[in-house]
């Protein structure tokens, strides 16, 4: 099986780290994986996006023309990427910033009030991990355990405070999504 996910939002929202976290976890799970960031003329506050392809077989192209999943952290990303999502695909939306009134009718929308949830953890910085947790629950791209184990490697073994915070954020998103 091959799944393609586009993560998108403002620069600074942790869009690229969301993708990188997923890519690294998928690698640890023994999957084929590619991670392609948008690069070059991007600025803080501008739009950023990256594409992660996870597969059981060799990956032909790291570019996704019709992804199965899209994560949109802001309105411009929502408007742009909902159009390329596969019919029946899943769109994870940062409901705190995005108005989903204009959503396509043939896709599934998962609206996560990331800002409100993040407040409970005391920092908006983990909004990306909350939505990533929700995506994992809804998509089954990789196991949630692999995601959690991966944190220590990404953040550095010694940084237990950070690991704990990110773990809580992932769990919060994961648990927010009901079956």
């Amino acid at each position, binding site marked *: 099986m091959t799944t393609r996910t586009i993560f998108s939002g403002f620069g600074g929202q942790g869009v690229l780290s969301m993708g*990188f976290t997923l*890519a690294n976890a998928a*690698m640890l799970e023994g999957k*084929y*994986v*590619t*991670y*392609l*960031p948008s*690069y*070059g*003329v991007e600025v803080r506050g501008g739009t950023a996006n990256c594409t992660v392809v996870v597969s059981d077989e*060799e*990956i*032909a*192209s*790291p*570019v996704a*023309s*019709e992804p199965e999943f899209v994560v949109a952290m802001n309105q411009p990303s929502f408007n742009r990427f909902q159009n390329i999502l596969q019919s029946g695909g899943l769109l994870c939306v940062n409901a705190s910033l995005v108005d989903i009134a204009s959503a396509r009718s043939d896709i599934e929308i998962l609206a996560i009030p990331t800002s409100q949830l993040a407040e409970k953890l005391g920092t908006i910085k983990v909004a990306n991990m909350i939505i990533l947790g929700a995506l994992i629950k809804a998509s089954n791209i990789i196991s949630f355990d692999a995601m959690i184990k991966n944190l220590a490697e990404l953040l550095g073994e010694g940084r237990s405070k950070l690991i704990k915070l990110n773990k809580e954020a992932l769990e919060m998103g994961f648990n927010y999504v009901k079956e």
Partner: protein
Amino acid sequence: MSGNAALGEAAVLSGCTCYFGYPITPQNELTEYMAKRMGELGRVFIQSESEIAAINMVLGASVAGARAMTSSSSPGMSLKQEGISYLAADELPAVVVDMVRGGPGMGNISPAQSDYLQATRGGGHGDYKTIVLVPGSVQELTEVVPLAFDLADQYRNPVIVLGDGMLGQMMEPVSFENIKPPKEYPKDYILTGAKGRPARMVRSLLFDTKEEEEHNWKLVRKYQRMEQNEVRYETFMADDAEMIVVAYGIGARIVKGAIKRLRQENMKVGMMRPITAWPFPAAPLQELAKTVHDFFVFEMSAGQMIEDVRLALAGKGRIHFYGRPGGVIPTPVELYRIIGRHYYMAARRKQQ
């Protein structure tokens, strides 16, 4: 790891002792990686004032016996051509990386394959050639980079690693276990100070036309040896194929995805992927032409490698072409449709 970073680590493990570079997207991560890593190892890293300076620093380091590398992207590569010509004339080893972006001119920063002719035809002035390696994945970069350093030393000639923006930017799992400790090559030409031995001279200025002609023929013989011994390529599902797609680098990878789809519909399409763009795998292509009539060239350019395919086939078979220049990355589905259509039309022609 990103392709650029993997390339840097592969160079470090291959015994690259000097790196000189000038920033340009989409290969900046390589320069960044080398800045950090070469410093840690106590090797030489210099961010030069220009691409021209960087390639000439490579020349200087190489003539002193170092394993030297520089990297750039398309517009920067144009600037380096003078230096590459001098390296070839002086018979000095060097590795030059080109992460190709859309052109001509300033172009853009998206991946492209439009520097093929520049790389495979020498690129600068004079009768010379460079070996051109065209890897197709981040893992293959770790095979190609040590090979590039070895071939450069073995033939005393610059070697080009021709990637593209996507290969540099994308991240994939990568292992460096295949890289062996660097081999030693005789360095009886390098300038180390003439104490206790006759003085040596490395130069490309040969006023005597006879002498220059002789030097040129000597280089030609070297290039012939490369053509004989260094052709590298890979085939994919070519055994029973009725159409062979010729593609390289990231393009070949997208083609592979398309072929898997085509095969599901019983379309007998295979692929020949050059790993050396120069010397071009002409003989293997001729061999395939004994059983295959239709060849499909795909490039992320307006059509450059197609010239080599034409030369290799020398009038045999029929050549189809599809190109996406300007930094556009087609999808496997797009190629599946195009190749499928050509396959269908070729089959119909055969029936008639």
